[in-house]
């Protein structure tokens, strides 16, 4: 394992500390309990938005803390949900009197820990509503599983919910927007290589030189199938088909097309992926109204990408376009 780290035990603390040092104008870091909040503090009268989960997915979530998006982010250990304490602290720090929305990726650990935190925050007199993100179509038979995983679509949910909160929507309205964004978002990913959890020291899984994993999870959880490496266009077809069938997306839909790098795949490849995905959507009469390309929801240094498609209505489009000023996503100011 080759990484630019010091003691594997300190990876998250040191990385978050560096993040805070690099963006003092945008965020402030609480070291213990560990969470990242807006430098300006909670916006009085506005709904607070808190997300979090295991680390190793940077810039998710801390990179999305700032005007127009998250109020605070709670980074857990690598690939492990944070415990309730820091979630409670982040929730209290994010309350501007209008309550707090928890945006939680659908993993048992995250759900249980945020659940406990929400109870405790409620006990402290802060109203909390939780929205679960589960956009990963790679997981089949949701009924017989822990349900679909939350993956790159989380960025879309956090962006539009943040914009809704910024314009002054109340807690239920913001939650409704987040729920609607999640309901209209589908994702699926592929891995060419595995990331290595620092304290584990060995790759989470091993792929032969000529194989890839279709439907990979952002923690390296295996996906639908292992196949031989094939040209990018073919891989895009394999990811896009289940995404489009699932919602289903139809001709005439306006969508956001989001190509997400897994951490070890450079932009030059991500744009090759985007090119064919855009081609396919065009053929199907689906209009790509907005786009996002980059490594936003990563899995350590994993090589691979995920595709996310969100069906946009006028309001979601307006909320997507609204000004945002975070370390990882910024426009309009």
């Amino acid at each position, binding site marked *: 394992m080759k990484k630019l780290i010091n003691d594997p035990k300190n990876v998250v603390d040191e990385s978050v500390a560096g993040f805070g040092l690099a963006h003092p104008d945008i965020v402030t870091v609480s070291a213990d309990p560990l969470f990242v909040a807006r430098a300006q503090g909670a916006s009085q009268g506005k709904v607070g938005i808190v997300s979090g989960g295991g680390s190793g997915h940077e810039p998710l979530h801390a990179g999305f803390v700032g005007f127009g998006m998250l109020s605070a982010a709670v980074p857990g250990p690598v690939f492990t949900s*944070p415990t*309730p304490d820091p979630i409670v602290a982040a929730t209290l720090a994010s309350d501007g009197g209008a309550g707090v929305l928890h945006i939680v990726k659908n993993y048992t650990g995250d759900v249980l820990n945020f659940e406990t935190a929400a109870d405790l925050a409620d006990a402290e007199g802060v109203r909390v509503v939780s929205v679960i993100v589960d956009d990963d179509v790679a997981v089949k038979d949701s009924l*017989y599983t822990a349900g679909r995983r939350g993956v790159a679509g989380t960025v879309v949910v956090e962006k539009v919910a943040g914009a809704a909160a910024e314009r002054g929507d109340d807690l239920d309205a913001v939650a409704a927007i987040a729920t609607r964004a999640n309901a209209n978002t589908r994702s699926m990913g592929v891995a060419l290589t595995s990331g290595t959890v620092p304290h584990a020291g060995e790759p*989470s899984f091993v792929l032969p030189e000529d194989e890839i994993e279709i439907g990979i999870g952002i*923690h390296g959880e295996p996906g639908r199938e292992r196949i031989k490496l094939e040209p990018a266009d073919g891989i895009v077809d394999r990811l896009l088909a289940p995404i489009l069938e699932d919602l289903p997306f139809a001709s005439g839909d306006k969508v956001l097309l989001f190509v997400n790098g897994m951490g070890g795949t450079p932009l030059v490849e991500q744009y090759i992926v985007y090119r064919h995905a855009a081609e396919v959507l065009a053929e199907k009469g689906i209009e790509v109204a907005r786009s996002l390309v980059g490594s936003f929801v990563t899995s350590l240094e994993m090589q691979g990408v995920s595709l996310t498609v969100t069906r946009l209505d006028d309001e979601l489009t307006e909320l997507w376009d609204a000004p945002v000023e975070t370390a990882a996503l910024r426009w309009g100011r």
Partner: protein
Amino acid sequence: MTAPEAGSTTHERNTRQMSLGINWVTTWVAKTVDVVSTNRLRLVDLDREIGDGDHGENLDRGFTAVATKFASLPDDSTPGAALKLVATTLISTVGGASGPLLGTAYLKGAQAVGDATELDSDAVVAFLTAARDGVVLRGKAEVGDKTMIDAWTPAVDAATAAAADGKSPVEVLRAAADAAAQGAVATEPLVAHKGRASYLGDRAIGHRDPGAESSSLILAAAADAADEVK
């Protein structure tokens, strides 16, 4: 539990002979800290096969914290208070799925124990049952879902039966530990319906569930501790 009158009289006689106090809890915790750190990488490997490779890390972090807390445990604490400390510490240090689940197990178990200073076989069974029920309450898993419940429920059943047969707390815990160990092994052929492993479908077959394995290690530590302090 529904032990027959006869049984209940029997075990009242036996348990009168012996019961477990606070030193059992502290010894159990000490042994758990050891067994978890010795098995840390093994549990990481199991979790890497059907999860995300952090289970051993999570528990090790949690029980190391418990050890620190126990260093300053008031001498006059009751078993219940000590078990509650384990619960809150795990909840606030483990994270992941196993943190809230195991934490709730100790929390509900502690509540069942109340402020008793000595635990007889019935109390041990009540503790284990409440603990298991706590995990089910939070995680909604059933036996056969390939989770830690596949260790806990057989353990509770075996403990209940042992107590009904008038066995001592040590014997009750040993029965629970043995059943949990078998339960953990029995998760290998299963498809998972809860937790990360459930994403794998058939590909989880042939792998032991890390949480079931860790729970059986924890219950074995409980029995060993009882042996030692008896």
